[in-house]
């Protein structure tokens, strides 16, 4: 269970570049729920994920994960409960290390790392079995450096790494945005499979209306650091991509209206 209580984050406060990325945002996600997040550029959706992961501390409000108040926990400490896949396929893996070594790093997420060998004999067998699930033929290339793999293969592996130990929360940050459509589809299929198989609680930011509409059991739309639309259950299943696009269009028109209105007010009163 993830609970965000009125969290706020402003970047570059007091400067001309001030951005209010999150504005008193509250959200609670039940265990086993798969939530997709959409929003306009700069709406704060990636900031939301980063706030939960601990990339920065929020200015106000609190973050609770599984009953623990993690608001002031550094990122590496929260990682014991959170699995993460980044937008950039280069972010989630260590390129000069082998597939096997990367996975063994993931297998100790949030656990003490001692002087035991990273690649024990029994471990390699377990590895092969679990990598085979991806159906990419990677199980025969475990000794290869990750840097030699394609973006899609890397993202699939990052996903496997993030979920190797069952996380209390899986964060997916536009993890197919940098991939070609075919590998993107593949990674989405694997994501769905793993989330369903392990009954994971997941928060997935996406730029694709069709992904947002078809995946998960709850949909959130963000705008200017706030949640402006939140549907779940039967209502969520009825959502169509076209509908979401229409809402975006509406937002854009509202935005323009805002600007002209502001201009008008300026002209009148200043």
């Amino acid at each position: 269970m993830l609970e965000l209580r009125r969290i706020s984050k402003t970047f570059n406060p007091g400067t001309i570049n001030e951005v209010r990325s999150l504005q008193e945002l509250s959200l609670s996600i039940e265990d086993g729920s798969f939530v997709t997040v959409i929003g306009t550029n700069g709406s704060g959706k990636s900031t939301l994920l980063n706030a939960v992961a601990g990339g920065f501390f929020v200015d106000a409000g609190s973050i609770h994960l599984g009953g623990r108040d993690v608001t002031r926990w550094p990122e590496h400490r929260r990682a014991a409960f959170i699995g993460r896949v980044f937008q950039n396929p280069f972010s989630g893996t260590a390129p000069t290390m082998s597939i096997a070594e990367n996975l063994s790093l993931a297998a100790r997420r949030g656990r003490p790392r001692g002087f035991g060998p990273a690649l024990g004999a029994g471990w390699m067998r377990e590895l092969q079995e679990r990598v085979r699930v991806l159906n990419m033929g990677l199980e025969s290339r475990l000794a290869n450096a990750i840097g030699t793999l394609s973006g899609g293969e890397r993202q699939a592996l990052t996903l496997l790494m993030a979920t190797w130990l069952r996380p209390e929360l899986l964060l997916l940050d536009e993890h197919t945005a940098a991939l070609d459509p075919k590998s993107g589809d593949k990674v989405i299929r694997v994501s769905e499979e793993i989330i369903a198989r392990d009954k994971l609680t997941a928060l997935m930011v996406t730029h694709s209306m069709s992904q947002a509409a078809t995946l998960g059991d709850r949909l959130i739309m963000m705008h200017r650091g706030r949640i402006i639309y939140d549907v779940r259950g039967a209502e969520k299943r009825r959502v169509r991509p076209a509908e979401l696009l229409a809402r975006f269009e509406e937002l854009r028109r509202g935005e323009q209206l805002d600007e002209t209105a502001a201009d008008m007010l300026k002209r009148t009163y200043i």
Partner: protein
Amino acid sequence: MTLVIGALTIGLILSVLALGIYISFRIFDFPDITAEGSITLGAAVAATLLVSGVNPFVATTAAFFAGSAAGALTGVLHTKFKINGLLSGILVMTALYSVNLHVMGKSNVPLLSSLTLGNYAENAAQLLGMTDESLRLGGWEVSVRDLSILVGVFGAIAATAFALDRFFRTHLGTAMRATGDNPQMIRALGVDVSAMMILGLAVANGLVAVSGALLAQYQGFADVQMGIGMLVWGLASVIIGEALVGVRSLGLAIVGTVMGSVLFRLLVAMALRWGLDPNDLKLITAVFVFGALVLPTVLSKLRARTPQVAHA
């Protein structure tokens, strides 16, 4: 022959320094100039302890921990106080100059009458039945003392290299490598990147200090100036090693670094014998490292240009 044995021994001793530089420079991509202070610190600590009659093994171990403390301090300055990496190293290196003078009490400590690790090597040779002053090896007269020290140093360096290779294959060691490779990823896997970097720099400078301790015992003195230029020396060894064996695997890189250090020392000894002015040594080393750093980019640019020229 004495010259060759001497060059091999110093090359092997400095390969411990090179392994330390390999950790900071290649694994963490951190040009750690602390090394120039910590090699002297290692020599100073070991020499001072040896003069007061401490067991050489204990003195060398103490040097390791002194160097580790210096490296950890650089790591803390860099990660906790967010000081630029190079500057953190410069601060600690500068401070160490005074520390080293305090440790030694003067600028140079001779070890002529002290028991050193060299004596152990000599004793071991005598136990093995080599009681003569010298023996004939392939037609050359070789001092038993020099040879036994070379063999002893070789054994110690082989053990160090092996231990390092094992370490970087443990859970902790792989996490350390990943910290240098992709900090964002390893943080998301629950590793405290700052702590890992501090630990890595501590190990690196511990090794550098051991190299200083061994060097002081071999050459018979510790000197406050002995660290100057050592970072670039270590870089040269690492780069030569990569040219010799490639960078395909960690084990190869470690062996290559040791080989690079030995080869570089041999080349230098030969150049000096052929009349190279010792004053030019650091200039040449710096130019060499410069060349090795820019050559790959220059070569790839040339390669990229060639087809266009052919078309035109």
